[in-house]
């Protein structure tokens, strides 16, 4: 399963996003990076069918996104928001069970099989605490894992994560990215993420898309496109790329 976009244009007053081509491959992480206001989240939400594009076509697992119903789309593509905005304090398990929505009819409720899928998803992301805990009691790192578990319960081939590492400490940051990597490499999922931490992008992504002011500045494998010149053009401050033990680090 893959996601692709051609001649995508999204416009709102004072902002326009244009992406001539975007492709995210199977079994790999595609990272979208760039300064605040570059259009990263906008691109993500257009690709996920949550925001309406003005022009262009988006294909999700081979089908034009407009031809899919909400439920059909959610069975192919799972979107993980930055923060969950629940007004009510559900238990972790009830929250993850909502990932099964796309498989249940209007009057339906989750079956024991759905509960098993939800429990399995929680185990896979490494959520170690009892699943009857209320979600408001969780730390932001744990909340991020629960949101990813809910997306896994959707059993979609494509996972789209909006800044999954923002506000996390270095340990949780690493855990979330390694989880994303396992999902791509072990389960063959197409993973698309927006990131602020360039080191994480360089280390984990097979492909990086640099955005600035609604335009694609560069797009390709990090080894091909990453340069100090590119970083200065995207972020408007000088940055250094340092090689250390075969890994590249970016120093501001």
């Amino acid at each position: 399963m893959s996601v692709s976009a051609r001649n995508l244009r999204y416009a709102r007053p004072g902002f326009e996003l244009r992406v001539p081509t975007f492709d995210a491959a199977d079994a790999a992480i595609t990272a979208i990076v760039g300064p605040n206001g570059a259009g990263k989240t906008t691109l993500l939400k257009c690709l996920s069918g949550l925001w309406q594009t003005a022009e262009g076509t988006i294909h999700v697992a081979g089908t034009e996104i407009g031809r899919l119903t909400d439920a059909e789309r959610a069975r192919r593509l799972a979107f993980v928001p930055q923060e969950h905005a629940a007004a009510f304090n559900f238990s972790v398990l009830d929250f993850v069970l909502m990932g099964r929505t796309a498989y249940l009819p209007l009057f339906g409720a989750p079956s024991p099989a759905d509960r098993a899928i939800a429990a399995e998803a929680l185990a896979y992301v490494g959520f170690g605490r009892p699943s009857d805990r209320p979600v408001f009691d969780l730390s932001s790192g744990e909340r991020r894992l629960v949101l990813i578990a809910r997306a896994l319960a959707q059993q979609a081939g494509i996972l789209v994560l909006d800044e999954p590492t923002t506000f996390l400490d270095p340990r949780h940051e690493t855990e979330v990215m390694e989880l994303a990597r396992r999902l791509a490499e072990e389960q063959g999922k197409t993973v698309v993420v927006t990131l602020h931490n360039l080191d994480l992008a360089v280390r984990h992504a097979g492909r990086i898309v640099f955005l600035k002011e609604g335009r694609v500045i560069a797009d390709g494998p990090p080894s091909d496109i990453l340069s100090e010149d590119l970083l200065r053009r995207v972020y408007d401050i000088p940055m250094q790329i340092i090689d250390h033990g075969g890994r590249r680090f970016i120093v501001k």
Partner: protein
Amino acid sequence: MTKAKRLLLFGLFLSPLVVFLFSLTLGPSHIPLSDLGKTLLSPLVKSWEGAVSPVQRDIIFGIRLPRLLLGLAVGAALSVSGASLQAVFKNPLVNEYILGISSGAAFGASLSIVVLGQVFPPQIGAFGFGLAAVGLVLLVSRGPRFSPVSVLLTGVIISAFFSALLSFVEFFASPYSLQALFYWLMGNLGSAGWDRLVVPLAVMAAGTALLLLMSWRLNVLSLSDEDGRALGLNVKRDQMIVVLTATLVTAAAVSVAGIIGWLGLIIPHLVRMIVGVDNRRVLPLSAVLGASLLVLADDAARSLAAFEIPVGIFTSLIGLPLFILLLTKSAKIWR
């Protein structure tokens, strides 16, 4: 779940039946439980027909039964509507009247009672204008900016508009019709016989059943709209189904019982404090608790004084202190 809690839940589910039987014996003419059983079953058991006093049968089937069934239905309907709307609007402060249905219905009833005499009964005026008010809210708030917040805001404004219209009618009303209007506005369950109850009872039963069937989906609808769509819901369609059903159910309740306040806010909260926020539990428990408490409040309203006190006063007097007490002792259930 602890054993004590299970017992409590079991008791809650049985409570409407207990309250129902107890309330049938209550009233100016005392009917002992032993006679009650025979009378209730007499239409089914031919040989008992002679053993039952016709007066008791008329009191039970003609007066107390319709009133009790109305109480159970209105209590369940208002509580379930309140819980459903709180989920759809992602806001625990929402009640079943938030979309202007009460002020619309009050204005409709005032038109009937004050201006038009009995050309059309207040029930029909209340039902029609209650629906009209919600229709107006949905009409004004539709379009690209449609969102729960814009609907709520429009609801507040339309409510204020119909309240102003109501004041206008009241200003020109005679003292006699004002009294009748106030009595109606405070809510009571004793005003209608079978002939006027059949349709509202059917609407309340069908609508409440539909909302109960959607109780798990209401969990997902209580997330943000974008979250709901990402999870695969047709959010606008589902919101519309819930809002229209809750409106119809509430309008049916208001048309025969007047405006009985606070049930839709208090009952779902009491239930959440006991069982948490999963609507698969909240909705059915709200139905049974709302039904029992409204009938108990009505028992108090009709037996505490020689005359009848509007039951709406009692739902507030009993419910609100109970609510405050539990609120200060409960765990965090909403943001």
